[in-house]
């Protein structure tokens, strides 16, 4: 089966520091991959390499079989990105922000379709036409999710998506990820949330000092064992 996200010996150095040691990774459609690791482990660097925001020192990142460094604009048609802090244009409403992002992605949705995306992502209907400057972090996150839904992307990149969300919102988010996965979207998520990662992922990678030190299927260990394994690596 073709891979929708792939890293081939992908590495990144900042002067003398190796931020990402050669990484090899493949994701199939519908797969959810969680990357666990402490701050500075190289999780966000990996995501930024797939987004084309930084250039690799070695190897290559591929999205839908296109090399990111060579097709920096084209690959973005196939991926959606939700950062840890979704920041929207504060003077525009959630609806206007979504309209802008989906138009940039090349879609011309009708107003009711855009509203449906926002409602499906869990944004209260009364908030849709309010300025996002007054939104909570969770509400902004939901507009980000709606933008990802509207983009019908093959790959969803998430950087600490549940950080700062309350348990209910976090749970809703997990359900949405599973739903997207069932629809064939591959999800690549950097997270600290071991419990959530185990709950939704098909595969989990543990990263330390820029290196993928362990990879496992989520069914191999329960949450307690996974946490123990993770902490063992961190204490080494």
């Amino acid at each position, binding site marked *: 089966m073709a891979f929708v996200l792939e890293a081939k010996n992908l590495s990144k150095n900042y002067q003398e520091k190796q931020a990402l040691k050669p990484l090899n990774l493949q994701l199939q459609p519908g797969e959810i991959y969680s990357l666990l690791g402490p701050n500075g482990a190289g999780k966000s660097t990996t995501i930024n390499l797939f987004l084309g925001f930084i250039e690799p020192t070695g190897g290559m990142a591929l999205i839908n079989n296109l090399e990111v460094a060579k097709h920096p604009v084209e690959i973005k048609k196939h991926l959606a990105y939700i*950062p840890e802090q979704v*920041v929207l244009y504060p003077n525009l409403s959630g609806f206007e922000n979504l309209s802008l992002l989906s138009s940039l992605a090349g879609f011309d949705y009708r107003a009711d379709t855009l509203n449906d995306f926002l409602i499906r992502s869990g944004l209260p209907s009364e908030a849709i036409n309010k300025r996002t400057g007054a939104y909570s972090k969770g509400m902004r996150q939901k507009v980000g999710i709606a933008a990802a839904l509207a983009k019908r992307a093959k790959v969803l990149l998430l950087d600490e998506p549940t950080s700062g969300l309350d348990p209910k919102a976090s749970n809703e988010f997990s359900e949405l990820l599973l739903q997207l996965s069932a629809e064939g979207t591959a999800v690549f998520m950097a997270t600290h949330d071991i419990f959530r990662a185990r709950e939704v992922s098909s595969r989990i990678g543990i990263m330390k000092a820029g290196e993928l030190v362990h990879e496992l299927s989520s069914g191999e260990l329960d949450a307690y064992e996974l946490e123990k394994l993770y902490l063992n690596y961190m204490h080494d």
Partner: protein
Amino acid sequence: MKKALRTLLYAEWLNFKTERSLLLFALLILMAGGYGIYSGHAEIQRQRAKIEHLDHLYQENIAELKTKYADTADAGDIGYYHATFARHMPDSWAALSIGQRDANPYYIKLRLLAVHNQLCSSENTNPDKLATGSFDLAFVLVFLLPLFIVAICFNLFSAEKERGTLALVLSQPVSLSTFLLCKLLFRFGLVMLLVVLLTAAGILFTGAQPDGRVWVWLGATTLYCLFWFGVCYAVIVLKKSSAFNAICLLGVWLLLTIILPVIINVASQIKQPVTEGLALTLKQREQVHAGWDKPKDETFKRFFAHYPQYRNTSPVTGRFAWKWYFAFQELGDRSVESLYQTYLSKLQSRADWANRFSVVSAPATFQVLLNAVGGTDLQAHLAFVKSARQFHHRLKAYYYPFLFNDQPFRHADYNGEPRHVYQAKPDKAAISMALLTLAISTAFVFALAFVIQLFTNPELK
């Protein structure tokens, strides 16, 4: 690409119309421009009214002389006491760019006496007022518009990065260059809208002739705005913080609009000193006053060498005769002729020197260009002075036959006296040169920006 452009431009519009500080700034520029137009128009109207009032003074002076002197007056009395005027009528575009019209005299009171002192004398003006310059539309365009451009562009990239919206937008299939281009295009459109509105209002309010200069004015302003957008772009692509960009761009504004023009001005005065103005005034004064003590024969001999047609005039036998008086006035003028020509050419050289070096300051070049369009630059003033001097020659040509042929000057002869009006004109050569310089400066600043962009880390994180 087209769709992305449209979407981003629309988003910029949505953001702009909710950004009160920017709306307020745009409104302030419009108000400043409106006041500039009003103030420039008021100044030029005042000058026009004063020039028109000269006719009244002229007629009043003739009426007085007709009362004082009989119908068969000595032309010498009339030549001495009768004041006429050389008038520098402003061009219809002068109100939009007053230039040097507030610093240089726009009319000169002339009598038949030696001309050079008269050409150099003018009414006193408050130097403090002159130092601040005029508040006209050109001032708003040259000095304030760049500040507006800086204010709307300095954080064009950095604010998106600092706020965090950049990552979200650039995770869409849009390149950073398209994103920046759209932002610059929107702002450029906004600035040009203000420029067109102000220019149209200026033309309508001041009654400027809607000739080819409309396009020159708009074209030059477009180039000037592009220059400042290029400067902003060169700083933006360094991808530094908003604070760095703001300080850097304000520094560039200060350097280009204030510091460099002052340095060029001071340097031109040191490099091209014009000392002949005072020297010729003193020399002419000495020559004229010495005329009283020189033998009359000697004076007439020198005078007739220039005017042989009056060689057979009746000799002066008494202590005083007007023709003798005007003969040594004439000789006073002739004694400083070469000094006067040097004075004019040095003034011109100084202006040329300053204009040549103003290439390093686009605002100075732009100001030179707008003054040239309005016919309010140094060239226009020098052309007026030259024309006033020719007028004085015509006056002499009219009065000398009365004087030297001992003809009585009759009341009806006032009607035959030459009159003078010099109509200011746009300085086409200066316009072409300044347009070329401005185009080169703009191209240079964009080339510099692209080089900076080439050597700046393309990474966004």
